[in-house]
C-alpha cells in the first residue's frame, strides 16, 4: 500500500469516525457537556478551598478539559469497537483488504482530535463564567504540546482498542479505566501529591505527560520539553505495542470467533 493511499485511508477513516461520533447523542453529551460539568465542579471546589488565583483556575480548566479528552478517547476508541461488533461492521473492517492498524489509527485519532474540543470549551467556560484569565507562558510551545498530547493519547487509545477487538465485554474494562486514569495522571491533583508507589504507573500513561506539556506551556515555570518528548516517545512505544498486539489479537479472533456476536 503506497504512502499516499495509506494517508488517504487514515484521513478518510478519521473523517468518517468523526461523523459517526457526531451522530451519537451519548457522544455529544460526553464530549460537549461533561467537560463543562467537570470544570464547573473544579472551579467551585478550588474557590471553596481559597484557590482564586488566575493560574489555579487555568490549572483546573485544563485538567477538566483533559478529563473530557480521556473520556472521549476511551469511548471513541474502545466503545466504538464494541458498537461496531454490535452492529456487525467489525468483521467487515477487520476483513477488508486494507491494513487494519491504519483503520484503527483513523478511528482513534478521529475520537481524540474531536475530544480536544473539551479543552477549548472549558477554557471558554472559565473565561465567561469565572473570569479566568487566558495566558500562555510559552505560546510557541502550546501548539506543539497540544499536538504531542493528541498523538500520545491517540496511540494509547489504539493500544486499548486492540484489546476491545479481542474481547466481547472489553467495554466494561473501558468504564473501569475512566476514573482511575483521571486520578493517577494528574488531571485533578498533581502527580507529585500521589503515593510514591503509584507514580511510576502515572509516568507510563500518556495523559500524565500530555497534561504536563499543556499546563507547562500555559502556566509552567520552565518550558515543558521533557513532557513533549515523553509524549512522542510514549506514542511510538504504544504504536509498536499495538502493532505487535494486533497480530496476536487478529489471529486469536479468527481462532476464537470473537469478532461478531453471532
Amino acid at each position, binding site marked *: 500500500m503506497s504512502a499516499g493511499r495509506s494517508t488517504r485511508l487514515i484521513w478518510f477513516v478519521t473523517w468518517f469516525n468523526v461523523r459517526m461520533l457526531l*451522530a451519537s447523542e451519548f457522544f455529544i453529551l460526553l464530549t460537549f457537556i461533561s467537560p463543562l460539568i467537570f470544570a464547573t465542579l473544579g472551579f467551585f471546589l478550588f474557590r471553596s478551598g481559597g484557590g482564586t488565583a488566575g493560574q489555579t483556575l487555568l490549572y483546573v480548566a485544563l485538567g477538566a478539559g483533559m478529563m473530557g479528552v480521556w473520556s472521549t478517547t476511551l469511548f471513541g476508541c474502545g466503545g466504538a469497537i464494541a458498537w461496531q461488533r454490535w*452492529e456487525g461492521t467489525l468483521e467487515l473492517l477487520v476483513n477488508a483488504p*486494507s491494513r487494519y492498524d491504519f483503520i484503527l489509527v483513523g478511528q482513534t485519532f478521529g475520537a481524540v482530535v474531536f475530544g480536544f474540543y473539551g479543552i477549548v470549551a472549558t477554557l471558554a467556560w472559565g473565561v465567561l463564567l469565572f473570569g479566568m484569565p487566558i495566558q500562555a507562558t510559552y505560546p510557541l510551545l502550546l501548539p506543539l504540546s497540544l499536538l504531542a498530547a493528541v498523538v500520545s493519547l491517540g496511540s494509547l487509545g489504539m493500544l486499548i482498542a486492540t484489546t476491545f477487538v479481542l474481547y466481547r465485554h472489553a467495554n466494561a474494562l473501558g468504564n473501569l479505566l475512566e476514573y482511575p486514569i483521571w486520578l493517577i495522571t494528574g488531571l485533578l491533583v498533581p502527580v507529585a501529591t500521589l503515593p510514591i508507589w503509584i507514580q511510576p504507573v502515572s509516568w507510563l500513561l500518556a495523559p500524565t505527560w500530555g497534561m504536563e506539556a499543556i499546563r507547562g506551556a500555559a502556566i509552567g515555570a520552565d518550558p515543558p520539553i521533557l513532557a513533549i518528548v515523553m509524549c512522542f516517545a510514549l506514542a511510538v512505544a504504544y504504536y509498536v505495542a499495538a502493532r505487535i498486539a494486533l497480530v496476536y489479537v487478529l489471529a486469536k479472533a*479468527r481462532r476464537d470467533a470473537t469478532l461478531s456476536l453471532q
Partner: protein
Amino acid sequence: MAASPSDVPAIEAIDLVRTYRTHTGVLRRRPMTVEAVRGISFEVRPGELFGLLGPNGAGKTTTIKMLITLLLPTSGTARVMGFDVVTETNAVRQRIGYVFGGDRGLYDRVSGIDNLRYFAELYGVEPSEQKRRIASLLELVGLTGRENEKVEGYSRGMRQRLHIARGLLHDPEVIFMDEPSIGLDPVGARELRQTVRSMVDAGKTVLLTTHYMFEADALCDRIAVINAGRIVALGTGSDLKDAIADRTIVEIETFGVADEAVERLRADDEVNAVNMEERDQSQILLVQSHRGAHITQRLLSLLGDTRVGKVVAREPTLEDAYVHLIATTGDDEARSARAASVQ
C-alpha cells in the same frame, strides 16, 4: 504443464473441520467442544452459482466464514481462486465480496452513499473510479434516488440491496452470500434473486447459503445439502429430486392430530418418511411412500379418529428431497455435533 486460470476451482474446500470451545454452567463451568463443521469437501467452478442448503445450525455460516478468512479452520484446507484462506488471507480478501443477510453490517446513522464511499476506501477502490462504480452499483441494486437517505430509515429489502452493493464495490471475482433473502418479502426476495442471477451472468462466481428450497432450486447450478456439519448430498436440483423420484408424496390436512397417530404412520412398512407442518388451525402431514397414491386409504385408516381435511397425492419436489435428506441424516448426527465431547 501449469494449470490455466480456468482449471483452478474458484472455491475449493477439502475436509474442512471447525470446532468451537464453549462451556456450560455458571458456578461449575464445564468445558465443551461443539463441532460446527465436520469434514466438508466441495469445489465450485468459476462462474458457477453454488448453493449450500441446510437447516439453522447446520454449519453453513461457519463454512462461509472460514472461506472468507474470518475464521480459522480447526483442520482441513480451503482455497479461493487458488489462494489458501489461512496463509494467503490478503490475496483472498482482495478477490472476494461477501454479503450477510439480516439488518446488521451497515452504519445506520449515515446515508447509504456514505456507507458505500467508506467501504470503497477500505476495499481499495481507486478514488477516480469510486464515483462511477458506486453509481453503477446503486443502479444495479435499485437504490438510485434513495442513496442520500440515512440507512436507519431503509426497509429490510433496501438494506439487503445496500449490502449487495457493498459486497460488489471492489468488483470481486467470487461472492459469498449468507442467507441474503432472510426476512425479505416475496417481491424483495424475487428482486434479490434477479440481482444474484445478473451477477452470475456478469461472470461472477457465487456461493449462496439458504434454507429456502425454492430459492436454491430457482437459482443454483449445483446444491450441497448440509446437515449437522456434514454434506449429505451434492448435485443439481434434479439430481437431488431424483433421489426420491420413485416416491409419491401424500399431503393430508388434519385438525388436532395426536402424536400417537403420527407415530403409527411413521412405523408403517409402506411409509418412508412423515413430516408435519403446523398451520394456524391445522397440521399438514407430508407422507412419503413408494406405493403411489394407492396408499392413501391405508394412511387414513392409520390416522383413526383424526379429523381430516384435504388429501392430495403429488410428485416429490426439491423440498421433499431436502426434508428426506435432513430427516435421514438426522437427529443422532446433530446431537453428536452439538456436544462432540464434554471434557
